[in-house]
């Protein structure tokens, strides 16, 4: 991050010991503070205590974030950090952050979080922020560490700062790890007279309440479907079909439009800003997952509640 290039710098710290973490993270943040930048530490409760102690009296100048609240699923995690960064950048022209990343032990989730790290490069690409994602190398499985090198342009470890030769274009990586949506034949059509957004909400609400889904989650689905339906009407030549049902224990709603659709692996993951709409960002916050795919009949958005 230089005055000429205020955009995001997204790097990783791979450390072998707590001492190494402190030796890297504390001077990194202190240097920013000396230059009038904001400082953010995201870590577990114990990690935050350790960093508070390391900063001493200066801990009051640091914003601490409990990662226990942050790493739920990528869309929510991005929104959570967006809040923290936006608040910090209201107080200082730039910021530095050290964020300990929580992958969890389930290998089925690793691609999900590697995808999150990839999309981070684009989601906050416009922010004057230097973010150092920290990984404890001890006990972190090799595939996760490999993902670190693929999603961070620079990595600092025991050998110092290294420009990653394995860094992969975020869009390309996301396309590579995102599974092709499978057909869900058991979904059924919702009949419509004149498909507008209000009618989509009414019919969908009837199905959701009849299924026994609680009010809060019903409203979340209605709001997400509103965003998708509005997009279909505005950009997709109108709504062609709406299908609903259950798959893998979740309620699913597919909205198909008549347009050519889009091919954007980060759709809905970019923090809203000038030129970037917030519709899909909002829809992703409210629901479990949203998939987009083309079929001979049209372009389909699939919402998983």
């Amino acid at each position, binding site marked *: 991050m230089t005055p000429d290039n205020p955009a995001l710098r997204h790097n990783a710290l791979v450390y072998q010991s707590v001492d190494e973490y402190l030796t890297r993270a504390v001077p990194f943040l202190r240097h920013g503070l000396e230059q009038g930048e904001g400082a953010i530490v995201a870590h577990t409760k114990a990690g935050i205590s350790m960093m508070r102690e390391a900063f001493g009296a200066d801990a009051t100048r640091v914003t601490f974030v409990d990662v226990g609240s942050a790493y739920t699923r990528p869309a929510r995690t991005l929104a959570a950090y967006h809040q923290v960064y936006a608040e910090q950048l209201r107080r200082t022209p730039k910021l530095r952050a050290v964020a300990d990343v*929580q992958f969890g032990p389930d290998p089925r989730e690793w691609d999900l979080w590697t995808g999150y790290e990839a999309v981070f490069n684009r989601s906050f690409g416009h922010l004057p922020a230097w973010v150092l994602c920290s990984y404890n190398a001890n006990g972190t499985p090799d595939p996760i560490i490999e993902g670190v090198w693929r999603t961070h342009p620079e990595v600092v470890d025991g050998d110092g700062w290294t420009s990653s030769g394995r860094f992969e274009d975020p869009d390309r990586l996301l396309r590579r790890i995102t599974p092709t949506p499978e057909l869900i034949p058991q979904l059924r059509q919702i009949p419509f007279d004149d498909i507008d957004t209000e009618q989509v909400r009414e019919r969908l609400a009837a199905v959701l309440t009849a299924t026994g*889904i609680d009010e809060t989650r019903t409203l*979340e689905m209605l709001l997400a479907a509103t965003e998708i339906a509005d997009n279909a009407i505005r950009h997709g030549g109108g709504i062609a079909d709406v299908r609903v049902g259950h798959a893998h224990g979740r309620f699913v709603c597919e909205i198909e439009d008549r347009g050519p659709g889009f091919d954007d692996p980060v759709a809905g993951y970019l923090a809203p800003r000038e030129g970037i709409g917030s519709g899909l960002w909002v829809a992703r916050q409210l629901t479990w997952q949203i998939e987009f795919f083309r079929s001979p009949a049209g372009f389909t958005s699939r919402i998983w509640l």
Partner: protein
Amino acid sequence: MLFAARRYDPALETPFWAYASFWVRKAMQELVAELTRPVALSDRAVRDLSHVRAARNDYLQQHGTEPTDGQLSAATGLTPAQIESLRATDRTARSTDERLIEQEPASMTFGETIVDPRAEQAYQEVLDQLEIDHVLDLTDALEERERMVILSHYGLGQEPRTLSQIGAALGLTAERTRQIESAALHKLRENLAQPATIALTGT
């Protein structure tokens, strides 16, 4: 059950019944997914799981050993029953042929230690409670009349009514009621387009 057996890790001290019940439940989900309400983990449960992971990582870093459910309970504020259930969803794979004591050929394999799961009902109750506890009430941002229009129109917690019926009850035209709904939806959307809330531990 075989799935559960393959993935269970006795070193983590979670009772096998709590763990196996997740897999029994998962198989049941797949069988009845079309007929039942969604039963996958709620957002709240996922958030709780995230807390458990963070607390576990803290403990591992400090002590080099796995925390007990009681220690995780103390660290997260979740009940031991919730901890058990959440941890049971978060296991890595383990083979039934794997020996309980590594490099000890006489040791029993993990598959030989399996007992019959008996506590599906207990797990069900915990998971249901997690669902009930999930109260991200979006409508808190709305004025009373806006909330009433949205809930009535879409039948949330009551029979659905048309905008004309709702308007008549409020002494308003259907068009005015539609405008109130539209404003309410806009307000909800704008609130969500703003950055989400995250727990700051102090500045």
